[in-house]
């Protein structure tokens, strides 16, 4: 009885979470210029038009460039950050843990504006590179947190055993630490990419002349109704879902294979 209540409550919350995505999808699949419900003329004309637009291609390229750079840099820095966060016992660690979390506990709009002032004071011109830096301020902490959760379950004796068997510091890192932590690193990368891809408040003030997809959508939304907005919104949702699903399956397969190998030994 109580279980049924909890299931249905959760079901209702999930529907609430996905109503906007559903609305976007419905709006994207009409052939008319204006949105009205129920839809009278179904069709994917606007998908075609949007995908053919050169402007949209450019937006994808900018967003992709930013997200990829952010992912690579964030994962490298966050991996070391996570080891300091969860692997080693050291004086000052508990303060460090809280400092790392501060940017997550900070309104992003204000952070974006602060970075704008800062870059200006330093004499930088805003471009997609400054946006990469801005994204990193928020994404490195998130990424550190995600990887840390994996590091917590890491047994330091593994590293000690490898040292004991004559491995150098670098060999230990490459042969033991990295492979064991890989699922965490992979989820960290996934988070970094997707969060950068969908970020709006930080991009808004720090991209300058370059425009990312969320910024473009925002500009279009404010300007009035264009069916391109629901199309791109739907694409973002499906794209993120697909990437997350593939990523999740990869982690599951990875874990399976690991345990399978152990069994066959």
């Amino acid at each position: 009885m109580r279980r049924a209540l909890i299931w249905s409550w959760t079901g209702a919350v999930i529907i609430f979470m996905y109503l906007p995505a559903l609305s976007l999808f419905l709006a994207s699949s009409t052939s008319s210029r204006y949105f009205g419900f129920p839809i009278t003329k179904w069709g994917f004309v606007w998908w075609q038009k949007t995908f053919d637009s050169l402007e949209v291609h450019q937006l994808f390229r900018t967003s992709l460039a930013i997200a990829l750079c952010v992912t690579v840099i964030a994962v490298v820095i966050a991996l070391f950050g996570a080891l300091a966060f969860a692997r080693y016992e050291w004086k000052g660690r508990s303060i460090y843990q809280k400092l790392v979390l501060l940017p997550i506990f900070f309104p992003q709009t204000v952070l974006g504006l602060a970075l704008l002032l800062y870059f200006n004071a330093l004499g930088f011109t805003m471009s997609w590179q400054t946006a990469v830096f801005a994204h990193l301020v928020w994404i490195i902490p998130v990424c550190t947190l995600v990887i840390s959760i994996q590091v917590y379950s890491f047994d330091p004796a593994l590293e000690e055993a490898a040292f004991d068997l004559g491995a150098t510091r670098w060999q230990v890192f490459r042969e033991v630490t990295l492979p064991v932590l890989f699922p965490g690193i992979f989820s960290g990368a996934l988070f970094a990419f997707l969060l950068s891809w969908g970020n709006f408040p930080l991009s808004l003030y720090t991209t300058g002349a370059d425009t990312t997809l969320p910024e473009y959508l925002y500009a279009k939304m404010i300007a009035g109704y264009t069916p391109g907005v629901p199309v791109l919104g739907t694409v973002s949702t499906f794209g993120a879902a697909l990437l997350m699903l593939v990523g999740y399956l990869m982690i599951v397969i990875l874990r399976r294979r690991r345990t399978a190998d152990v069994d066959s030994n």
Partner: protein
Amino acid sequence: MDRLAKIFRPGPRHAIPVMLFLLLGFVAPLVTVVMYSFVPSRTFDLWQDWNLDNYAEIFNSSSYIPFVWSLGLAAATVLILAVICYPVAFGITRVFGKYATFITLLFTLPLFVSENVRIYGWILFFIKNGVLLGSLKSMFGYEPESILFTTGLTLMGMVYVYLPFMLFPMTLGVSMVPQQTRDAAFDLGATRWQVFKEVDLPLAMPGIVIGFLLTFVLAVGAIAEAKVLGGQRIIPITQDIETAFTYAQNWPLGAALSVLLMLVVGTLVLVVLRRFDLDTILGKK
């Protein structure tokens, strides 16, 4: 030499890249904002006579109203989310079993879609002739007023956007309560409500408080909900700050407003976070 050796022990050594980056990318920008807040109004040069005029201007005007709105809406968001999320967090830890991961993924996904796009989805849902009203009209011939552009909808938008930020820490918290401890309380004659009050709540508290803090802080910084869904019926503090920086071209005033917001948020975060041992919350074994 001794001190150098200490710094280069593995723990601090691995922390260096992150700390360095945050120093340059987080602390330095905030310091810049603080410095700008002392510069004369409507100027852009940092190096001139500093004064407190911007702060005086804020306290002499009605700028406190957006502050109150932001804090009030954030508090309301937190309370509503607590009620919405607890059963879900409880379900993910104790009821859903093998579906728990999938359900968690369902709640993670929206985080990766730009929040303004998702808010736009709500507009399409609530707008006249939109998904809701269009359906009502065609199915029942019923044509109510649209609730778009109201303060209530602003609040709903905030609840919607920040839901995962409450849910995930709360789930961590609920999963910190050992099942045997709950069983023991139950076995000792506690009712369901007493188990909740005496065992579940106190033991899950660290996660719950972190969820409260995170959603509150993020909701204080909310801007798009009021702008897009609320039709600018109310102006939150972030929008005031944004206006100062953009249309008004008054960076020093914007900076001073930001500093005040940072003070509120920063104090709250530091006071609350200081009391927690993150290792136990994040599941150190």
